[in-house]
């Protein structure tokens, strides 16, 4: 019965289609418009086809000449336009001279509001359904530093809870990054300003870096990351928050699209308590240098020798 119905519908559609073609054939003018339409379709698909071919042969970011970078960026912008129907800018700003980025976080001020987490997701265009968050806020027992007994799913009525403290963990931008050494295709590297970045188009998705990282800072796009077009941040960087695809790694990159222009990372700007301090480690006048010289600071898992550039401190 159902098959019959299907056949009928098929017949109807085929019949109507034939009818339309007949109408087109009879009137000359209509035929002409049909031809131009078809030409447009062919042209568009041709562009898409050539784009996909070019992206297959796209080089490693650091081996591209400046002209090749421009061509690649134009292609990536077309791709984003097709996917999100929105014009985005893709920046390629190099590291600032005499700059080494460092981060300090005051754990006596962090109250676990998770404002930084959501600000990061909105800034960096993480897929809303891929469940990727660059920052995990760990709720810890007061007086304990046992990361294994921490809880990042805490959801009480109000924070801070009594007898707990909060320890946000994100990419530590190690000076000696184990993830970079683990990558078999060199798709990830440390920039001159100390930020570990990924060429998302060169990544093969083997997830070796994910296992090499002792801080759970690297995240994998298990499915296609979907961002609602109206929520997509159009100001992006090639090594930063440009739209990613399924099957690649991503991680915190200290918001290179913002910090290389002198702005604060999104997490720092969103923090309501002022617990997060970002700055240039090579500038003796900077706030972070004051903290490192005057406060009790520690880093996570220092014994591994990864030399993180992310310090925690107390008042």
């Amino acid at each position, binding site marked *: 019965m159902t098959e019959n119905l299907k056949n009928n519908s098929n017949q109807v559609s085929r019949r109507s289609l034939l009818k339309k073609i007949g109408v087109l054939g009879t009137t000359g003018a209509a035929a002409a418009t049909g031809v131009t339409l078809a030409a447009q379709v062919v042209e568009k698909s041709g562009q898409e086809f050539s784009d996909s071919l070019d992206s297959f042969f796209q080089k490693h970011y650091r081996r591209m000449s400046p002209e090749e970078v421009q061509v690649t960026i134009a292609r990536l912008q077309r791709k984003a336009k097709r996917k999100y129907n929105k014009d985005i800018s893709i920046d390629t700003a190099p590291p600032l001279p005499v700059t080494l980025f460092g981060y300090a976080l005051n754990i006596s001020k962090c109250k676990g509001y998770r404002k930084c987490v959501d600000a990061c997701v909105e800034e960096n265009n993480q897929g809303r359904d891929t469940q990727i968050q660059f920052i*995990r806020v760990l709720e810890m027992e007061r007086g304990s530093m046992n990361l294994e007994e921490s809880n990042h799913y*805490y*959801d009480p009525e109000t924070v801070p809870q009594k007898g707990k403290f909060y320890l946000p963990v994100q990419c530590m931008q190690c000076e000696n990054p184990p993830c970079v050494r683990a990558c078999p295709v060199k798709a990830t590297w440390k920039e001159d300003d100390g930020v570990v970045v990924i060429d998302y188009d060169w990544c093969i998705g083997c997830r070796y870096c994910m296992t090499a990282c002792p801080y759970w800072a690297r995240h994998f796009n298990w499915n296609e990351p979907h961002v609602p077009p109206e929520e997509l941040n159009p100001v992006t960087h090639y090594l930063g928050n440009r739209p990613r695809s399924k099957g690649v790694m991503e991680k915190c990159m200290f918001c290179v699209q913002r*910090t290389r222009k002198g702005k604060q990372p999104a997490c720092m700007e969103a923090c309501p308590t002022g617990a997060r301090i970002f700055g*240039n480690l090579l500038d003796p006048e*900077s706030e972070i240098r004051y903290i490192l010289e005057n406060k009790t600071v520690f880093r996570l898992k220092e014994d591994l020798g990864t030399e993180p550039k992310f310090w925690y401190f107390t008042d």
Partner: protein
Amino acid sequence: MFKIRLITSSGLLVFALILFYLNPFFSGQTASATKVSDAAANTAEDNTESADETKIVEEETESESDDSDEEDGDSSDVVFEKLLSYEKYAPKFSIKPRKEAELENFPCMDCHEDEETNYNIRLLEEDHEDYKLEHGAERFWCLTCHQADNRDYLRSLKNNAIDFDQSYRLCGQCHFQRQKDWFFGAHGKRIGNWSGERKLYLCTECHDPHSPSIKPLKPNPPPKVRKGLVFVPNGTHIKKKVWQKYLMDQTGEKHD
């Protein structure tokens, strides 16, 4: 012989050098002693002359404050400058003004001009009854921090006037350690950028001066548990002792 002569001559040389280095040290010590006696005299003057005097300190540039140190004019001003010492050494900053933009009742003298000042400590019932004074555990009263004569200004403990937009100078009288951190960037919040012009929030942007502790808030929603995984709260499976598991086996309860 030659060796011995060399040793003695070198010994003399070392001794002369030691004397040479010690000399300025001794003279420096005497100089500092005279300085101390000067300062003591200054403070004595300060107590006798200008204890009740009020002086409106407008926005001062660094050069002006340096001048006042050298002139040795009003001694209460010198004491006040000592409080601000860290401000001089901190990296340059500006603040986001609050006085005109965010204080609802400013300028205060619009109402307080006509009213007589009531110095009695009491519960406010007619105006400002919504202010809860939880600061300082009942040791404070409005006029501890607000000028009695000119309500458009705050008041330091030495009865100097402080602008509302420089309230960090008032707070720093007790919270000097926090104030130092604030000047150098370890406390408080910088607005917008990490390099370039340094603009800071005032203390009162985050702390209600009448009840300064930060109130608890509802946190943003927790991360989702990854697809295919089940959330097991901490402590449910790691902290079971062997004998507890044995007992649970006996009663037929399940454990992992």
